[in-house]
């Protein structure tokens, strides 16, 4: 055995060992805890009134967040890619901000500006709209933390799909409708799906911002992650395990589905991380000098 293969083997063992210790062991611990309880306990735990209403609220809010994010994310991506307007650079730089801001700080910001003591809060109150300690506040917090996903997964695709492509199809006699369905949609779909699915998974697990804005009233504004936190604090590992496992299963299923839907044949690396790739063509070579 040469030193080169020895070195390779050492590196491989280090990588596999580290990942197992850091990621697989903790997952195995929760799976084990869940097996101790058995399937009957699992169903019993997630169907208690408090747990089931937390799960339903979380799924509902995450779904609503995903829909709004998909709509405004797509619109934002199109505007940021296609239009030249004052402040474009500024908005484009801001998109990444939710990844850099601690989620707890997000919660504080939303609570401060949409709370009952501000002008905005009072104005909303006159219209009988409560944001804080209610479902809209939860959706707002989820929207904030997931904002970059759709925009950042669509931007690179939209840049590749230059307007010329559509114009080519159009000049070859395709109607605007056909152009949209046959050219635009198929090339944009994988990016959109990635953004949408990641948004949903991220929203399901959100904790830091929601714990501040939701008020966490059991059966009313308590989401699943806050419920799990409560169970841990009150020394009920079984209840915490069942709800955690339920959320984990949904998240993993969604990601597996995403992988199946977006992976081109022959590609082996997961593409979930696409959003973090820098959207290169935004900077024109002339601007760099």
């Amino acid at each position: 055995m040469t030193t080169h293969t020895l070195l390779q083997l050492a590196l491989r063992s280090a990588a596999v060992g580290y990942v197992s210790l850091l990621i697989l062991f903790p997952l195995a611990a929760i799976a084990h805890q869940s097996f101790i309880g058995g399937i009957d306990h699992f169903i019993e735990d997630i169907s208690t009134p408090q747990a089931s209403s937390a799960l339903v609220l979380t799924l509902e809010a995450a779904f609503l967040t995903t829909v709004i994010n998909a709509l405004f994310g797509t619109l934002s991506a199109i505007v940021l890619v296609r239009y030249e307007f004052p402040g474009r650079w500024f908005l484009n730089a801001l998109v990444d901000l939710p990844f850099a801001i601690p989620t707890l700080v997000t919660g504080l910001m939303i609570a401060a500006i949409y709370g009952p003591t501000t002008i905005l809060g009072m104005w909303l109150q006159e219209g009988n709209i409560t944001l804080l300690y209610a479902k809209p506040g939860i959706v707002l917090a989820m929207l904030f933390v997931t904002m970059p996903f759709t925009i950042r997964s669509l931007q690179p695709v939209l840049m590749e799909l230059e307007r010329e492509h559509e114009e080519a199809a159009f000049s070859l006699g395709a109607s605007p409708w056909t152009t949209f369905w046959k050219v635009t949609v198929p090339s944009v779909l994988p990016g959109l799906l990635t953004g949408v699915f990641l948004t949903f998974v991220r929203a399901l697990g959100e904790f830091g911002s929601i714990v501040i804005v939701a008020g966490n009233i059991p059966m009313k504004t308590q989401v699943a992650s806050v419920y799990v936190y409560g169970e841990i604090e009150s020394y009920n590992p079984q209840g915490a395990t069942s709800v955690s496992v339920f959320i984990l299963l949904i998240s993993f299923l969604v990601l597996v589905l995403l992988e199946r839907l977006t992976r081109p044949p022959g590609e082996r690396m997961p593409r979930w991380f696409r959003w973090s790739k820098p959207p290169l063509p935004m900077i024109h070579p002339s601007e760099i000098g």
Partner: protein
Amino acid sequence: MMRRLFIGSVWFYFALLLIGPILYLAVQSFDEGIAAFWREVTKPEALHGFMLTLEITAIVLVMNLVFGTITALVLVRQHFAGRTVLSGVIDLPFSVSPVIAGFMLILLFGPETILGTFFGTLGVKVLFAMPAMVLATLFATFPFVVRELTPLLQTIGTDTEEAARTLGANEWQVFLKVTLPMLRWGFVYGATLTVARAIGEFGAVLVVSGNILMLTQTATLHIYQSYVDFNYVGANAVALTLLAVSFAILTVLELAKAKSAAIVTSAN
């Protein structure tokens, strides 16, 4: 007409969700004057929180750079059974809620488990102490460096390294003088994301730390405690400090993007 409507709604969306809340937090933090802001930020509890966050972030950054590089190299350069599984497992932390991540560590290191008993007899306190807080942050941030490096490693290939070897460089020289420099913008990007996430980590750390004042209370935990204790000025002041750090991080990200874009453009 459509154009103006679109641009207008995007500005509106950004203002409502991002710009408004950020500006308002800045105003709120100085609600009782600069003196109050300064008092809150320099309180012993707050300073301790900042220091602890800094320590955890430093440890996590070093660990992620070392093991992230190794894992990325193994993933891209080596072919072995289970490589696809390894690749899939790396992304899992992104889909795990921070509270659940912390809870998993409690289940793993609790006093009644094998690992918990083992560390207990050694006299090492894992839960409600530094080790668990570092582990929780490592779990949340592990994918960043790996996922920045893998596409870069795929793009650059091994030609340059082979050339260096032919010219007589040993493995260590090849790695230090050829591979690492080519990966530098990936490192910058991955490290920045790691730092941002490590500073902001809350849910997982809250669960495993016990949130003990002046002992295991990080900056985010201190904000939470101040908020729960109705000390809004204190919470906002420390939050604004972290927000300033976020802006610094964002600036680094933008610069890294511009630089790496320049490299790609000149390569084409």
